[in-house]
């Protein structure tokens, strides 16, 4: 086990030297409870290596894994009117926005970028659930419109990763109006005959599901993602009825004909490459025609707290897996 001392050790050091606290070295899977080595978890795209549970991933981390070599260019999103209704509940809306900006380090709840994915030029948009529940306000609307316009201009497919609790209440009717508005954006793509692929991630609910997130040419979901219009609690309250196991989860929707596919995050990139290239009439992706990535260690699971628990979903190691 030479590689542990030779390779893993310096990595641990490098993590210590970046101001991560020692507690952050291990993350407990919120599903199976396994303690997961931080680095291993992030290399597996925040999918539990023990049980396959999909934890949240930030749009930025997702893009780093999606685009070749982790390289992408952010697309500017026009700034909407901040706090259009002068909304105040127990807090002022601008204060809630600032708090979300501080905690996420992002400007708003959606990131839009262009770049190549398996040498396939694309535009991608990803919603950030950690930013005020990913809620759709005018900024998210602007982001989707900007993404669609850019995709049309460059004649590229748009891949959208949804995650939202719904519309942003603090923008009132103007958040609701993002439903038709983003639908117009989807129509721009359709009329340009460009693929619009939606990847629904946990959770995608409310007005977001009832607009752009359900209008894809291909609808893919991550395993066990909650996807619904009305949330399970609302339904249980309204009906006083117990809901079946797995209700409104990705697999349940697949069974009910509402999705094309349910695909693990670790296989998503390859699948998106395959699908977009076929829809764009491009030849199959050639594995291995990219600059050599960081080799060996990706194939080996680093030190684990519980060595007996064999990973069910090993990290994929195609030549296209970007080096980090």
């Amino acid at each position, binding site marked *: 086990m030479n590689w542990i001392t030779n390779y893993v050790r310096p990595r641990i050091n490098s993590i210590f030297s970046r101001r991560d606290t020692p507690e952050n070295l291990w993350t407990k899977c919120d599903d199976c409870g396994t303690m997961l080595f931080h680095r291993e978890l992030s290399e597996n795209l925040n999918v539990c290596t023990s049980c396959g549970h999909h934890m949240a991933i930030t749009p930025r981390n997702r893009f780093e894994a999606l685009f070749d070599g982790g390289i992408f260019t952010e697309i500017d999103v026009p700034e909407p009117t901040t*706090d259009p209704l002068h909304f105040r509940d127990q807090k002022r809306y601008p204060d809630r926005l600032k708090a979300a900006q501080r905690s996420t380090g992002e400007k708003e709840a959606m990131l839009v970028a262009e770049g190549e994915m398996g040498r396939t030029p694309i535009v991608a948009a990803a919603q950030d659930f950690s930013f005020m529940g990913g809620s759709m306000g005018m900024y998210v609307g602007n982001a989707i419109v900007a993404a669609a316009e850019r995709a049309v201009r460059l004649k590229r497919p748009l891949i959208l990763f949804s995650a939202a609790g719904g519309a942003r209440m603090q923008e009132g009717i103007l958040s609701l109006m993002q439903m038709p508005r983003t639908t117009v954006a989807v129509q721009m793509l359709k009329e340009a005959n460009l693929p619009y692929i939606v990847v629904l991630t946990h959770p995608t609910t409310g007005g977001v599901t*009832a607009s752009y997130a359900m209008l894809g040419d291909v609808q893919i979901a991550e395993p066990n993602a909650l996807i619904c*219009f009305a949330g399970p609690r609302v339904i249980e309250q309204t009906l006083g009825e117990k809901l079946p196991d797995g209700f409104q989860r990705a697999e349940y929707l697949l069974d009910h004909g509402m999705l094309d596919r349910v695909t693990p995050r670790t296989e998503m990139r390859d699948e998106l490459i395959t699908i977009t290239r076929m829809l764009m009439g491009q030849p199959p992706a050639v594995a291995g025609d990219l600059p050599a990535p960081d080799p060996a260690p990706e194939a080996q699971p680093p030190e684990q707290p519980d060595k007996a628990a064999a990973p069910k979903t090993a990290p994929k190691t195609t030549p296209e897996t970007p080096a980090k």
Partner: protein
Amino acid sequence: MTNYLDFERPLAEIEGKAEELRAMARANEEMDIETEAAALDKKARELLVDLYSKLTPWRKCQVARHPQRPHCRDYIAALFTEYTPLAGDRNFADDHAVMGGLARFEDQPVVVIGHEKGHDTKSRILHNFGMARPEGYRKAVRLMELADKFGLPVITLVDTAGAYPGKGAEERGQSEAIARSTEKCLQIGVPLISIIIGEGGSGGAVAFATADRVAMLEHSIYSVISPEGCASILWKDAEKMREAAEALRLTAQDLAELGVNDRVIPEPMGGAHRDPQAAIKAVGAALGGMLAELEGKSAKKLIKDRRKKFLDLGSKGLAA
């Protein structure tokens, strides 16, 4: 018999007294109460004007939901001729929360679609209180396609607390059905006019109201979430619905300022439920006006303008 709202209690007392006096006078012909009763009438009228000239957003919600408010079927019966209901989504069922079909408005053939809440216990259950299931939105899509094919304007009457939050509705794709209905609204090359006659509840309303012209009755509301729902999420207390109604800016007047509502249709004093015929007449006049505004526009131009109208809703806001 009037159903009084809680804030109308003082009014109910005065009107009750006037009625009592008149009832006594009917029993005893020697009594002369008319002067006194007329004074009470006058007082009641003044109070009504006072109450309704400054309705708070929450009170508007109450008026918008008033059980005696004219509903979709009342407007269809009074404003349209030859109404021919068309049913079903050709897939699963006919949703009675959504009524619609062919009809004539001032002799012009149109397609009319609307949410129907029902007016008594039996009909409310039949119409599921105006809360549509996916089949309702899919029926609407089908009717819009029919209208598009034969060049008929589409008129939608919106009155729903929201799409139905139920197990079957979710299983059959409530979100997708709403999304497709909104999408269809943006695709048809015929005039599309939407009138919010009571409640415009969230996505369930947008699915019909993505229109060339959106008009709202004076005391109707249109909102991303009900004030009660918003209060329970943001205030963690559903009883804070007054504050939430205020903050959400859901009144016809606020929405006109925000560019979402194109026209406020005046209601009779004391709300549409106090004089349904007057309310229906006002809606008819507004409808005629809006149809005239869109007359002669090509299909291409209609679609282009409609899309632009909604695309422009990314930079709006109330004045500072």
